[in-house]
Structures are given as structure tokens and as C-alpha cells.
């Protein structure tokens, strides 16, 4: 069997002297939408920072399409095809919507450029109506869409979405969910870090559960839906 698109193998991450991740091990196949679930502080964001190169693993590795990317600087990991959308919607507030997208634009790892600003505005019609508005003036949900769109402009093979529903009104959360489903149906490979399991049930194809910096469960989203023990042990609020 060919190697999965993204493979994290035995990764340890330390912040200073304290260990945050312990031998994290999971993989994502092309076209999957993987929910990375866990409570607040379980290690989801650190897992993403590790994959994106912002918190490199001291042991273990991250492989993308069979090639080791861990240990490279973040910009090389991004160019290799990993698109990272951080949790706190880091738009460039004094750039317009259009300029945010332009800063994110780059060719994909194989020189492909199927995401252009025109295509982004088709998929994100809300943003099309505010191209010249400063990103700092957008609502939280609009900023969330803009950060996703900006990362897509880099034509990544995998996108890492860190808590895209966090702090948004229910109706906006619904719009973000619709958007992610659309991207999934277009064949974009997605890892979705969430505390909110219900948000993921209708979106993800697979689930990985992290707790205290360790992976404790891997399955399809349907198996997780019916596994009351895992849900109550690791995910119940």
C-alpha cells in the first residue's frame, strides 16, 4: 500500500522543559476530512503547530507524500503543500480582503495554481462583496472565511483548520460548516481540530481523538458516532 498523504510518526513536542505531545501517531489519506478531537488543552493546536513547523518535534517525524518535512522551516513546509489556518483568525487587519488573498497566493507543490482570486470569490461569495474592505473591519465569521480562503490561495495539498467554529454565532458556524463540506466535496484534504464533536459529525469522514498529548482513538466518524464510551470519556463537556 502506498504511503498516506500525511503521516505523523511518534512525534514528541516540548515547550521549554514541559512535554506537550507524547509519541503522536496518525495519518490522513488523500481526500479525507479528518476530525482531530479533544478537550481544551488536549494538544490539538500544538499538533497543528508541529505539522506546520512552528513547534518542531524533538523526536518522531511528519511526512508529506512520503517525504520528511519536519525540521524544515515553516515556509518550506507550506511550500511542500501544508496549509495552516491558525485558531485565532490571523488576518492582516490593515490589508484589504483582496490583498490578504494576494499575500497568500503561491503555486502548489507541483507548480499547480487552480486556486485564483476569481475561483475563491466563486466559492466564497460573501468575500466577493467586500474585496476592498479592510480585513480588520470584517466580522469574526468573515475573518474566519478569509483566513481559510487565504490559505487555499497557496494551493496546498492538505489544510489544517484550527477550531474554525470557535467563538462564532450558531448561524455563522452553520455557514462555515457548509463551506468546509463544499471543500471536502471538491476533494480538498482537510484536518479539522475541534472541541465541538457535533460540528464535526456532519463534516468529517474520519476521527482521531487526542487527550493529554496522546492519541487515544482512531476510527471513521460513523464508528465514533456510536462509541458512547469514547465520547463520554474524552469528549463530553
Amino acid at each position, binding site marked *: 500500500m502506498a504511503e498516506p498523504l500525511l503521516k505523523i510518526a511518534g512525534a514528541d513536542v516540548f515547550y521549554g522543559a514541559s512535554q506537550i505531545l507524547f509519541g503522536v501517531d496518525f495519518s490522513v489519506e488523500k481526500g479525507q476530512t479528518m476530525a482531530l478531537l479533544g478537550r481544551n488543552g488536549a494538544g490539538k493546536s500544538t499538533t497543528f503547530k508541529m505539522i*506546520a*513547523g*512552528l513547534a518542531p518535534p524533538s523526536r518522531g517525524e511528519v511526512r508529506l507524500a512520503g517525504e520528511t518535512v519536519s525540521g524544515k*522551516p*515553516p*515556509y518550506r513546509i*507550506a*511550500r511542500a503543500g501544508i496549509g*495552516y489556518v*491558525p485558531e485565532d483568525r*490571523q488576518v*492582516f*487587519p*490593515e*490589508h484589504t480582503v483582496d*490583498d490578504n488573498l*494576494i*499575500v*497568500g*497566493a*503561491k503555486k502548489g507543490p507541483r507548480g499547480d495554481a487552480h486556486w485564483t482570486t476569481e475561483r475563491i470569490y466563486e466559492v466564497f461569495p460573501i468575500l466577493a462583496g467586500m474585496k476592498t474592505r479592510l480585513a480588520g473591519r470584517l466580522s469574526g465569521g468573515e475573518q474566519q472565511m478569509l483566513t481559510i480562503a*487565504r*490559505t487555499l490561495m*497557496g494551493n496546498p495539498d492538505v489544510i489544517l483548520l484550527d477550531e474554525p467554529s470557535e467563538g462564532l454565532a450558531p448561524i455563522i458556524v452553520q455557514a462555515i460548516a457548509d463551506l468546509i463540506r463544499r471543500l471536502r466535496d471538491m476533494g480538498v484534504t482537510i484536518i479539522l481540530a475541534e472541541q465541538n464533536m457535533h460540528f464535526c459529525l456532519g463534516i468529517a469522514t474520519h476521527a482521531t481523538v487526542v487527550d493529554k498529548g496522546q492519541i487515544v482513538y482512531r476510527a471513521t466518524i460513523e464508528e465514533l458516532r456510536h462509541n458512547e464510551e469514547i465520547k463520554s470519556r474524552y469528549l463530553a463537556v
Partner: protein
Amino acid sequence: MNLEALASCLSTSACAVTQVSTALIIGMLLFMVASGLSLIFGVLGVINFAHGAFYMVGAYFAYAAYQATESFAVAFLAGALGVGLIGILFERFIMSRVYGKDVLMQLLVCYAAILIFDDLVKIIAGPEYKMMGMPEAFALPPLEFGGGFVPAYYVFMILASLAIGIGLWLAIEKTRLGKIVRALAINPPMVSALGINTTMLYAGVFGVGSLLAGIAGALAAPTRTLTPGMGLSILIESFIVTVIGGMGSIVGALIAALLIGFTRAFGAIGFPLFVDGLMFAMMALVLILKPSGLLGREPAR
């Protein structure tokens, strides 16, 4: 105080035109130096105290290249590109090691660089004053503006700096690279996560900022006496300009530099003993009324 002399100069067009042209060349040179300083501070968050030394090196490079080739174009390029290259090397090997350190550390490193550059100039070019003289290409009759005469080189200098300033502004505001540089000034880790080599970009921005100091030095060379240590006074005036105009604002630097240029040119006639005093007083006033400078951004909440 001699306000009568000032009034009589303003009422004779010959004197007024001469002083306006003087104000403009002082202002535009200061704008070139200060906009480089401001660009480097705005993006990298460091103050390049060696910027005045870079201006001096630009003037000496232009002088040496002109002595060797008698071509002002070569002299200009030598000053500009030579100092741009020095800026990149200085950033890569020295300045990048003190990022995020105490500002005193940066000051110390730059002060050491100033002393080294001044001594190198003394060793290589000699401690005595140098005069480059007016380049062959500008040995033209002065141009007349409303009864006053302005040397052709002054007109060239003013237009060249204005064109470079406009080019710089367009590059930062309108090009993709400029948009990336502005994003880098705000959120470097995010820019890096979008696939952009921020280390290289920092070196490039430092290089462009230094290039501007080199251009100013090369443009000033035919009109100034060259001495080791000539960078100090322009460094201090550039600080006044960036404080008044606002750190990181190119348009602010232009307005403030012209303000200083006019203060110097007309103050020399009307209140020669209080020119420096007035410049510092204006800076103090701006610091009291709008600490971020005329066009500077208010600090983020």
C-alpha cells in the same frame, strides 16, 4: 533674530527661489535617508543607528567611482548598490543576531559599526576633506525660475529623489511584494506559514533601506564636502524627521523632511542661532500632541 532679513528675502524672488531650492535639496536628501530608516524600523522593528554611516559610505563610494570613471551614472550606481549590498551583509551577519534583544544591544552593535566605518574611511580615503565637484554631465547654465537661478544639478537631485520616493511608495502600496512586506511588519509567523521566506525578506528590506541611504550619499556627494563622520548630523536629523513624520510612514517622512528643509533654509536667514532649537522644539511638540508622529499609526490596542 533677523526677521527683517527673512521678510526681505521672501519679498525678492531671486532670494526666495534660491532658499526654496536649498530647502528642497536639504529636505529631499533627508527624506531619502529617513525613509530608509523608517522602512527598516517599520518592518524589522530595529533602529539602524548605523544608517548615517551608510550615507557617508554612499558618498565616498560615489566619490571614488567618479574619480575612477568620471561618469556620474557609475558614481550614483556605486553609491546606491554598494551600500545596498553592505546593508544586506550587515543585516545577515550582525543585525540579525540582535533581533529581539535589548535595544541597548542594537545601539551598541550599530555604534561599533559607525566607529569601524568612520575609521575605514579614514584609512582608505584619508582623514582630510574631499570635494567631488560638479559632475561633467551637469556643467550646464543654471535654470531660471521666476527671477531666481537654480543650478541644474539641484533640479536633477530634487526630481530624482522625488521619483525614487514615489517609486518606493508605489512598490510598498501596490505591488504584491510590497503587500507581503507590510504583512511581515504586522505578523511574521503568519507570513512564514503562508510559504514566504521571511529571513530572506528581512535581509532584502534592510538592503533596500540601506540602498536609500546610499542613494542619498551619492546624490549629496557633488554638493557637500566629504569627511569621515559626516553621517552623524544627518542621522540625528533623520531621527527628528521620523519622529515628526511617524515611524514607518513614507509620506510622513516626506512631509517632515520638507518641514526640516524649509526650517533650515529660511531659518539660516531669519534666526540662524535658533535653527537647531526650532527643529527640536517641533519634534517635542509632535511628541506631546501626537506621540506616534503626524502620519504614524497609533500603537495597537
